[in-house]
Every structure is written in C-alpha cells, then in structure tokens.
C-alpha cells in the first residue's frame, strides 16, 4: 500500500510523476469531507454555529455540510449538556449513522457533566454510552478549539489503515458499530453506563 520509499517518491515528484496509494487517496478524500450531524444541545451549540459561520468558517476544512439526517452524517459533535432524558436519543442517533463515524465530545458537560456533574439529571459524560474520538475541554470551548479538534480528527482519519491487522475499526467486522440504547429506569438510566465501553480511570491516591 503506502510502503513506497519516501526518497523515491520525492524524486519521482520532481520528475513530474505523482505517486500515491489507494489508502492515501481514500483518506485524503474522507478527511476533507467530514459532514457533521446538525444538532446542538446547549450553549456549546452556539459556538458550533459560530464555527460554521463566516468568521471561523469550518468550510475551510471541508466540514460545512451539516446534515439534518444521521443517515448522511460522518461526525457527531456532542455540543452541550447531555441530560439523562436526552441520552437515549443521542445513542440512537449515533446508531443510525453509517460507518465510518466519529464523535467529538465538545465542552465540559459532554465530557464529564461539567458544572452539573453532581446533579441527578445530567449524564456524566457521553463516553459512558458511545465511543468518543476527540474531547474538547472548555465551557464553552471557543471556535478555535473546535477547529483544532476537527483538525485532530482529520489527523486521526489520515492515519487509519485500510488493511492489515491494525486496520480501521469500521473495516473490522468484529468491532461494534451500534451500542445499546439505555432505558429510562425508575431512578436512573439503565444501565448507568456501558460497561464494555466506559472504564473510569484509576485514580492515583
């Protein structure tokens, strides 16, 4: 695939011959046309809207096509507080997105519950139910931070392999692309977290 010698490639390029690989071409196309799912949850969504508008202009990175349907979206930007009442809908939307799909967890609330962490009604991080690719801290993060996260995601996509033992997750049939939707329980969401996905970090005391 991409095991062409860099020196040889540079030499060929100087002679007017452009050599690439299927993987590079494929990832180049994918990373420059990431279509986000159009939804916002709280004040972070205002920053997301500002990022999409002319001043910050996410179109410079190929992410301007906000899709109102999960079936056409590649990227889910979880922008804002995820209440426990909203969490099943978020997971359901994620399940409806086609592979390959990516998640940016934007802002303190989507990461951990933020200022509502000790409340009874807010989910303490969307990573309890769906896998997250890039986390952005901030309350709310500035548009530059979202653009940075977007570029980080592009870098991540660029490094994904099309074949081999360490190929991208969406190409491996054993990797799940849908995750169980939590149910509304009598006291809390059931289950309170996806145990296969969410492992709280060990705190060093």
């Amino acid at each position: 695939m991409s095991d062409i010698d860099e020196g040889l490639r540079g030499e060929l390029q100087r002679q007017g011959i452009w050599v690439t690989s299927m993987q590079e071409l494929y990832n180049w196309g994918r990373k420059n046309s990431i279509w986000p799912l159009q939804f916002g949850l709280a004040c972070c969504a205002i920053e997301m809207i500002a990022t999409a508008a002319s001043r910050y202009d996410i179109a410079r990175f190929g992410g301007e096509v906000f899709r109102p349907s999960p079936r056409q979206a590649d990227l889910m930007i979880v922008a804002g507080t995820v209440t426990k009442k909203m969490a099943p809908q978020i997971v359901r939307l994620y399940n409806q997105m086609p592979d390959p799909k990516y998640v940016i967890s934007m802002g303190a609330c989507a990461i951990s519950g933020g200022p509502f962490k000790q409340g009874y009604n807010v989910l303490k991080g969307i990573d309890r139910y769906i896998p997250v690719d890039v986390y952005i801290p901030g309350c709310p993060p500035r548009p530059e931070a979202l653009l940075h996260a977007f570029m980080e995601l592009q870098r991540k996509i660029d490094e994904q392999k099309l074949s081999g033992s360490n190929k991208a997750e969406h190409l491996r049939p054993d990797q799940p692309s849908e995750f169980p939707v939590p149910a509304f329980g009598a006291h809390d969401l059931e289950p309170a977290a996806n145990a296969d996905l969410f492992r709280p970090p060990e705190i060093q005391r």
Partner: protein
Amino acid sequence: METLAEIKARTETVAPGARLEIVSNGSPSQQASLRIDNEHAVEIARFLRDDPELRLDFCSNVTGVDWLDRTIKKTVKVKQVVDGVEKEVDQISEEVIPGYLEAVYHLYSIARKHGPVIIRMRTADRTAETQLPSLTSIWRSAEFQEREIFDLYGIHFDGHPDLRRILMWDEFEDYPMRKDYREPDDYEYEPTPHDDVLEKAKRHYAPRPQLDGAEKITAQP
C-alpha cells in the same frame, strides 16, 4: 395596594368559613404571605383575580417547598421538691411538627400595576395525602409550573387538566427536589473530590492493602 391583613379580612367576608393565616417572613424582604385552606382555595383564587380592587390577573410564579418533620424543644421552669428543698428545675419538652409540602403562588396585577400578593397552600403530610387543588382553572400560567411541582416535589394537583411529569421521564419514580431524595450513585470517577462528594466517591475506592507487618507473622506456617 391594600395590606395583606386587609386582603385577608375582605377574603373572609367573601368566603365564609375559610381558614386564612398570614405567614410572616423573617428574611429582610419581610414578604408575608397568605396561607389559604384547600377547600376554599379555588373560590378564594377567583375572588383575588376578579375583585375590582385587587385584579390579580397575573400568576408569575408557582413554586414548591418541602418541609421535613421538625422537633421544637421548649424549656419550661418548673418548681420541684428535690431532697426536701424546693428548687426551680428546667423541664425540656419536645414537640414534633409533622412535615408537609407547600405550593406558593406569586400574584401580580397587570391591570392595577401592583403586587406581589403571595398565597400558599399546604398538604396534609409528605407521603400519603399530597393533594392540593389546582389553580390552573384560575390562572392558566400555573399549568406548567404545577406540573413541574408535581414532577419534582410530588404534589398532586386535583383538577389539573394534564398532570404529567414535565422535566423527568414518565418512568421516573422519585421526587428529586424533596429533601430526603437520594440521587443515583454515579460517583465512580471524581478527579478532585472534596466535602460531600469525597464521601460519596470514597464508596467506589478500591480497598487499600493494610500493611502493618502483622501479615508476615500470620503467613508463616
């Protein structure tokens, strides 16, 4: 605007038999409120809205209050004969006031440009009889707020057109704003816990091996 005492006196003439009480407020605002009984509540509310002097046509806010059981300690000096000598002894008596739930309505008049007049209603207790009459038929703006009180405090408003939970999901069974509510235990990851949160997070901590030297002795055969 009339004083609350004047409003109370006029209300008593309109709704004979109604038990009204002025509840004082010890805070700097000194906003006293009028406690009305549940049987005459709708009648009194209609009077407050339609009376040409008051015209309280705008219910700006409805809120709930949870009062737990309280014990009031009273100290009374009693004369007692101790060892043949009469002495004054402090006798402590305890009075238990059972808890109740309250709904508080803040009323203004757009027409007469005055307010607020605050009225409140009390339930019989906190668990079994948590009914109050709904005032949505008088002030339409109370509809969602009474639903919210039902959702968070568990007061059942009789006569409400659509009494469902409004913030929490329908399957939810608790009343989160009650003072004895216990939230779900999801404190497994607290990076910087302190105070109450630290106590809750400690329940998830792995037990630390207690090495005091004794295990070497007990391990030997």
